């Protein structure tokens, strides 16, 4: 067996088909993006090497870039400080031993499996000032003065998109946290009860510390998802009105495929990758502590 398993031909047969597809259609493009980002190029004419000019333009000239960075951070902050606590509460709720908890878990999770395109188109209609469900419901509840064109107003557009992503993804974090909570042995809670720690105290001294690994994963996931937000904005507002909802990924897409600025678009892509990797790394560093044993 040992001999057969070190046969080079068979190894190549098993490894190469997948590896070649992966390298050509994923790994190599990542490297090429970095190369393109140093060029001035419209995708058709020969490219000219311009060094870091694209990056300099990005950081100093392009105002909508900073708007996009800020918006991505809005997604990040909402993901970590609003969505995650809600998910935590939902996970606590569905972990209670009560009838029908599996039903509730399934209902809360279901939006996650629907496509962002679908969810976004649905909410475009919900926010629609004429036929939309939201304004109609507000009218019915006597809140008629609050109705407006939610996605068409610079004041409400970003918030409206943020609400949709929260609605869409709370179930995802809930599920991961729920799975983590299932892994905490029941004895700990029983022991804590004897010591008088119930309710919030039990959450504070048992659930939180023992869930710290899972919480860290959730935070990193939320951050990365937030930083690469594209579909929801593309479908709901296309960055508008007046760049009020634009994000880095959307800017990259528009620069490259609408304005034919392939070099500049690539620089935005590189920025996105570095942003994701660095922030994920920092969070991991900050939140990794000694493992807690009881």
């Amino acid at each position: 067996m040992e001999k057969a398993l070190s046969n080079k031909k068979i190894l190549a047969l098993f490894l190469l088909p997948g590896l070649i597809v992966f390298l050509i259609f994923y790994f190599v493009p990542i490297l090429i993006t970095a190369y393109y980002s140093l060029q001035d190029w419209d995708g058709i004419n020969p490219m000219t090497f311009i060094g870091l000019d694209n990056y300099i333009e990005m950081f100093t000239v392009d105002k909508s870039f900073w708007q996009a960075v800020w918006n991505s951070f809005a997604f990040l902050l909402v993901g970590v400080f609003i969505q995650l606590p809600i998910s935590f509460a939902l996970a606590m709720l569905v972990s209670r031993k009560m009838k029908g908890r599996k039903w509730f878990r399934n209902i809360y999770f279901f939006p996650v499996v629907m496509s962002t395109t679908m969810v976004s188109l649905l909410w475009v209609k919900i926010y629609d000032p004429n036929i939309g469900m939201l304004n109609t419901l507000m009218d019915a509840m006597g809140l008629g003065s609050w109705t407006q064109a939610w996605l068409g107003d610079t004041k409400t557009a970003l918030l409206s998109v943020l609400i949709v992503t929260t609605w869409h993804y709370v179930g995802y974090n809930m599920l991961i946290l729920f799975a983590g909570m299932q892994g905490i042995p029941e004895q700990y809670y029983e022991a804590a009860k004897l010591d008088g720690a119930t309710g919030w105290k039990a959450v504070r001294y048992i659930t939180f510390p023992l869930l710290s690994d899972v919480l860290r994963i959730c935070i990193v996931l939320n951050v990365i998802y937030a930083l690469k937000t594209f579909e929801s904005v593309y479908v709901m507002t296309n960055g508008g009105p007046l760049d009020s909802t634009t994000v880095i990924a959307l800017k990259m897409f528009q620069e490259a495929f609408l304005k034919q600025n392939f070099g500049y678009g690539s620089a935005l892509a590189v920025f996105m990758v570095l942003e994701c990797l660095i922030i994920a790394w920092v969070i991991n560093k900050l939140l990794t502590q000694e493992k807690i044993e009881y």
Partner: protein
Amino acid sequence: MLNKTKNTAIYILMIIIAVLQLFPLYWLVVSAFKDNSEIIGGAVWALPTKWRLDNFTEAWVSAKVSQYFFNSVTVTLVTLFFVLLFASMMAYALTRMKFKYNGVILFVLLMGVMVPIHATLIPLFMILKNLGILSSRLSIILPYIAVNLPIGVYMLSAFLRTMPKELEEAAFMDGCGVVKSFFKVVLPLLKPPLASVAIFVFLAVWNELLMAATFIQKQELRTLPLGLMNFSGQYSISWGPLAAAMVISTLPILLAYVLFSDQMEKSFTAGAILK
């Protein structure tokens, strides 16, 4: 007594949240059966006065959702087949076979789990253009396979590492070669993690928009998310047919959810922990 009140309060809270999660979907489904006057004039929570199927025929036939549906099915199935095949072969080679660059390959694959696909978009566009396959089914299938392979390899390797080698050893004793023992012994044992990978990849591919929007320019090759987006631009006034198209495009997911919700939970948690 106090406990009972508390329990009822929690139940009510949970039901309110469930309504918040489900009401938009309820509105979608009933809208798909309503005509325009009912949608604009009627109450949002009302059931249709008559369950009309016009919107569905309109979406399926005139708006070509049937074609988008077929495209999505083709692209998803082909991608799924190759991801499962390649990922299990790679995972097997990386965990069971002896060679030097094992660690390097796993590290390179890790890039595929960490780096967002957006970063590959512009070069991929040029690569596909130069290969002459831009705006063909292959132009999204190949990137979809590449994007989904790493997570598949990681999920399957994790499983293989914990799987005892005795059965394979027995197969070798019986004179099976590596290839035969892989297909006859290993693959059947990999079924549970393969199901998880399959669900993960199915949802990712079925729902993908960015690459489809960039690489598919022919109208007749559009996948469902892309078709729906375009549809909503053309039919900006009539919500009914769009709602019907959206219901149709979600049916396979709903079906998968009803059939495999436990497996789906597992695959999402496993996928998340790996990321």
